[in-house]
């Protein structure tokens, strides 16, 4: 995998003008830069100016124990060959109760629909989004914010509860 070149981390630091100890970690397959919500928009603007011209995926991850929701914008470039091999994850963490993140759809239009999806699944309120309404789910399901960890989905186990005779006669698959 050619994504672990040290050059990209340095380049990111210079693009975003971050302090040397700012958290830019080289992960498996992408480089994550975590920024606080206030400076998210101008970090995105700098990235776009530097050549990261589109967002591949907008992800939200729910950490109930840390009471935080992390929103990651995986951005990369299509036009600039030197950057198209790398993916940058611009991450911010907001508290879990009423997560509001400045919407980047004005900078990257490609993030618009995925921000709507994160709104309906996690309840992350992207302020400044042109029309923030549920994309995939119906409004009442979206109100339950299904992808949060507290929306439990119970899984079945490996063993049948009914006994041999009961199963052979009634064939109840419990």
């Amino acid at each position, binding site marked *: *995998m*050619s*994504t672990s070149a040290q050059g990209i981390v340095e380049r990111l630091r210079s693009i975003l003008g971050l302090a040397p100890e700012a958290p830019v970690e080289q*992960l*498996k*397959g*992408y480089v*994550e830069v975590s920024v606080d919500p206030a400076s998210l928009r101008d970090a995105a603007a700098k990235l776009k100016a530097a050549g990261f*011209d*589109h*967002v*591949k*995926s907008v*992800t939200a*991850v*729910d950490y109930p124990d840390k009471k935080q929701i992390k929103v*990651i914008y*995986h951005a990369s470039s*299509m*036009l600039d*060959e030197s950057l*198209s*091999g790398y*993916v940058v*994850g611009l991450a911010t963490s907001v508290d879990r109760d009423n997560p509001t993140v400045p919407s980047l759809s004005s900078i*990257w*239009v*490609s*993030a*618009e*629909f*995925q921000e709507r999806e994160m709104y309906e*699944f996690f309840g992350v309120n992207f302020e400044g989004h*042109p*029309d923030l*309404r*549920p*994309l*995939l*789910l*119906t*409004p009442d399901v979206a109100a339950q914010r*299904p*992808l949060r960890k507290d*929306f439990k*989905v119970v*899984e079945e186990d490996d063993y049948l509860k009914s006994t041999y005779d009961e199963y052979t006669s009634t064939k109840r698959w419990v």
Partner: protein
Amino acid sequence: MGTEGSQVQSLPGMQVHPLKKNLYEVAIGPAHPGSGHMRILVRVEGDVMVEVDPDIGFVHRTMEKLSEGRDWMKNIPLFERMAILDACNVTLPYVEAVEKLLDVDPPERAKYLRTLLCEINRVASHLYGFGIFGVFLGHSTLYMWAFGDREVFVELAERLTGARLTHTYPMFGGVRRDMPDDFGQHVRKAAAYMRRRLDEYAKIFLLNPNIRSRLEGVGVVSKSRAVELGLAGPNVRASGVRYDVRLAEPYEAYDRVDFEIPIYEEGDSLARAWQRVEEIKQSLSIMEQAVDWLEKHPREGFVHEKFWKTAPPIYKKVYAGEVPYAGKYRVKMIPLYASLKVPAGRSFARTESAHGEITYYVESDGKDVPYRVRLVSGSYRNVIAFKYVMPGHRLADLPAIYGSFDYFPPEWDR
């Protein structure tokens, strides 16, 4: 730049809301004769579309939520249901992301086998796309031809993996079957047949003046617009953008196979159709090169030794085909797969599926179920084209543009 003041608070379909003066709302779908389940709310002024709002989610199977409850290995058949006609390309990035977390690099033969199946699926998926394209333009011959010829590649996949569509072929560390003995000449025959058929497709469809006039200059996406909207796959390369995951970040055996990435400059529906024809040709040549390599090299190394070293002797007998009813070259899995625990970490992987670039963000906290899997498919990234590319065209252009973007509703709903 959002649409001008359409502050519609709730889902348009659900509530009546004041229309502008003479806009006429037509709902196309959800049970649509051509594609799958999707609804497009089109506000039409006369015959020209003013506002197009895709109302998707009819085939949403909550794959991201389900994946958080299932073991690592069980998510492969789950994610495959996103686009079963392109099963290998869709599950491969998930397998690669987890392999990155496991620090396991599949052996050379497994990489070539994966590339081979990915290309067979790409051709089958492009042919499916041409079939739907034909239905949308009323050209039933192309629909029947595309689906008929797709049978050749589905048969190839069935010979290689034992299942027609849902192969679940890649697994962590390798693949589940090795190539049968006579598979090479099957691939060469299928490739020769398909090359001849592609010229006939062009003659009856792309060079047919009736279809050309429907496609030329329709749904034009400029180079900068395509990049700004973040479209994916052939739709981007048809607008002149030189971007392909197999070129930017070669995965599996794509850096050892020489092929060309066709780029078209026009960016209209016709260019997207020609783009797919050229990509099928390239896929056929990749398939042939992969099969040549596989036939020349010895039959070992289809699974990483970490998962094969501790295999009991019966596994070798099953692979050799001595067990009578077990078929030949079947790779058995060691029971470790059933309770695999992936070390904590976050990883991101992307491949070039037939509908476009597909990306997985996998986060694990060391347990036997993933903590979070975020998957964005090619069709999902192209949905934004409804809203920004379609307005201004005629209502009758909607099928032409829809078909040229090669949408697959189950893939964008996930």
